[in-house]
């Protein structure tokens, strides 16, 4: 188990390269999330110190953007594209099927900590619609039952 002190140290190391830069806040938040997978409360305080604003301000910025997560995600991140082309080609069926299979809703993580489910507005791979992404792997022309099949690779 990592303790709060460890996380704080980790955050400090991650955001150190942004010291003195003109554009700090969002890139620093992104750097922390890339490494930890989410933004722990310590990140707001430390980034606030660095940028010279309050932790509240940092949280206010972070909560505005869809990219940032505030709880630890599961081992595998499933993203279902709900862009226009995917919607027209039946993306909601993928999302419904996955929610049923994993017994979680969007933005939740399975109890075992294996999978997190998110929906995304457009990966820009519209010609392969509907699209789902597991971690870094992109799958095109997915159906509801097909999406459940895909998950088996990650179990």
């Amino acid at each position: 188990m990592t303790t709060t002190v460890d996380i704080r140290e980790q955050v400090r190391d991650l955001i150190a390269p942004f010291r003195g830069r003109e554009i700090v806040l969002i890139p620093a938040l992104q750097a922390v999330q890339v490494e930890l997978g989410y933004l722990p409360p310590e990140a707001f305080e430390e980034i606030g110190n660095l940028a010279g604003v309050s932790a509240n301000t940092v949280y206010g910025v972070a909560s505005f953007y869809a990219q940032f997560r505030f709880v630890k995600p599961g081992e595998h991140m499933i993203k279902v594209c709900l862009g226009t082309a995917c919607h027209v080609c039946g993306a909601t069926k993928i999302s419904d099927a996955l929610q049923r299979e994993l017994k979680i809703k969007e933005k939740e993580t399975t109890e075992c900590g294996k999978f997190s489910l998110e929906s995304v507005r457009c990966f820009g791979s519209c010609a392969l619609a509907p699209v789902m992404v597991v971690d870094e792997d992109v799958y095109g022309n997915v159906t509801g039952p097909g999406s459940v099949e895909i998950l088996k690779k990650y179990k």
Partner: protein
Amino acid sequence: MNFGEIQKKAEAEWKALLESDKPLITVGLATCGMAAGGNATMAAVKDALAKHGIEANVMPVGCIGMCYLEPIVDIMKPGRPRITYCRVSQDKVSSLIEDYLVYDNPRADMALGTIGDGTVEGILRLFDLPMLKPQVRISLRNCGHINPEDIYHYIAQGGYTALSKALGMDPDDVIKEVEKSGLRGRGGAGFPTYRKWQEARRSKRAPKFVVCNADEGDPGAFMDRSVLEGDPHVVLEGMALAGYSIGTPNGYIYCRAEYPLAVKRLNIAIQQAKDLNLLGDRILGTDFSFDIEIMQGAGAFVCGEGSALMYSIEGKRGMPRVRPPRSVESGLWGLPTSLNNVETFANVPAIVARGGDWFASYGTETGKGTKTFALTGKINRPGLIEVPMGITLREIVHEIGGGILGDKPFKAVQTGGPSGGCLPAALLDTPVDYETLARAGSIMGSGGMVVVDNETCMVDMARYFLAFCVEESCGKCVPCREGLPLMLEMIERITQGKGKPGDVERLEALGKTIVAGALCGLGTSAPNPVLSSIRYFLDEWNAHIEEKTCPALVCKDLIHYELDARKCVACHRCLWSCPTRAITAKPLEAPVIDQSRCTRCGTCVTVCPARISPITKLPGTNSVGAGRPAENQEVLVHG
């Protein structure tokens, strides 16, 4: 090295590649190609070459735009034209390489077309194909042809000549050339590019900024991604030209976080350009310096709006402010800023190199040049296209796009994403131009073009876009924050069969109020998809409200599924895959659907062997005939 020497080196390298005695093999590795298995294909190409002991030059290229044919592999044998092969999945690579490179059989069955001089028997020229013939490629000219991670490839195609030429010109003359070209903002609003540059140049305040808007948030659009992944240098050169015209060394690219590959390739490109002194301090020995920094967005559609984008770069919540002042007066950190879209910048180098008049020879009176579109949806040939302005929607949909998937009837084409509208079949002959599309109730937008057939419900489509805008509204102004959810609530009621007479009128009145009252582009355009849908598809709205049916059979609360036991082979696949166990059956008999448990997910139809399709979607919430007990049916066919 001066620019002439750089050019010579680039041309020599390119020539060596094309005229090499080794074959050249390229694999399309943009995000779309990778999603279709491009990486596995690339690995298989290398394996196959090793297996047969063939030496070849292998390189990744960007997207040529025919996304439905990915993975795409090009092979050029010495002295032969380049042949483009489509749908080369990893299992087909070995036989292709063996047949063509070992036994000299060009595999016309897998080939799509040839590029360059010379012909190969049985294979057409690629750019004579119906999907490519009507296209004119200016901003996409290098995509799919060059290695996006090699600056010399770009230079060998004439890259950075515009910058080198401009450095010897007066900045005002560069702006004049852009004015002559008639180039207007390709992000959708269509503001004349030269005016932004001119106003920023004339501003007495400093420092000034050039910002590239690569926050392509419109769901269903990927033009910018393709340019950034396939030809990043063209955007960098366009930005440097803007910087020179305006007189500033500061450039920023605001790129959306969902495009990691674009960011990676931009970073490589910036470093390469700096190494050759085409970016950075005292470019090519002149007094002009220009540097570009990449800022990644964090997933907020509203940040495509100018003022919100700049707040986001500053590290604030991306909430738009009242305009004026416009960003050329008060932009990034309150200083003069010229914000242009990726595609706008991608057009600039060609304009400066070949002259504004050349560019203006394409297009219409009010819309000059070309426009890229991401053509997607229920269409035979989805992909990225670049067409001269003034081309009709019909040409795009039927000639380039190859018509509707499965020969179903065309219903509508949606342009401009959540800010645009749907145009019906009657308007298919509308020429594509900023003004004509706006008059028809849609917008040019950044270039998303989603084609829908009669299986798409226009009420559901309006609901989809509105739900998107509700989620993406920043919450600053009341009409958008409060008005849009009210509209959404009404539409959701309608899709659930709870619509009331007068709902359409209420939606229109509220929509027009929001258009008039909202603060920024997101709010003022958010009702567009609903208003245009009502304008052209009123029948469908009335069917939902008055008859409580969904003619397209999409709205779940207004449909049900029935199983025709006479067509069923009792394979029971539907039964095992039904997530709510609404399907039951006795052994070897056709299953029965329990309507009270059915959630209308459609899984049964997906898993049912399509040849037979005994399960049909029907209008109405339920029917007495549905779920007839199996013993009542006369014939059971076992297959």
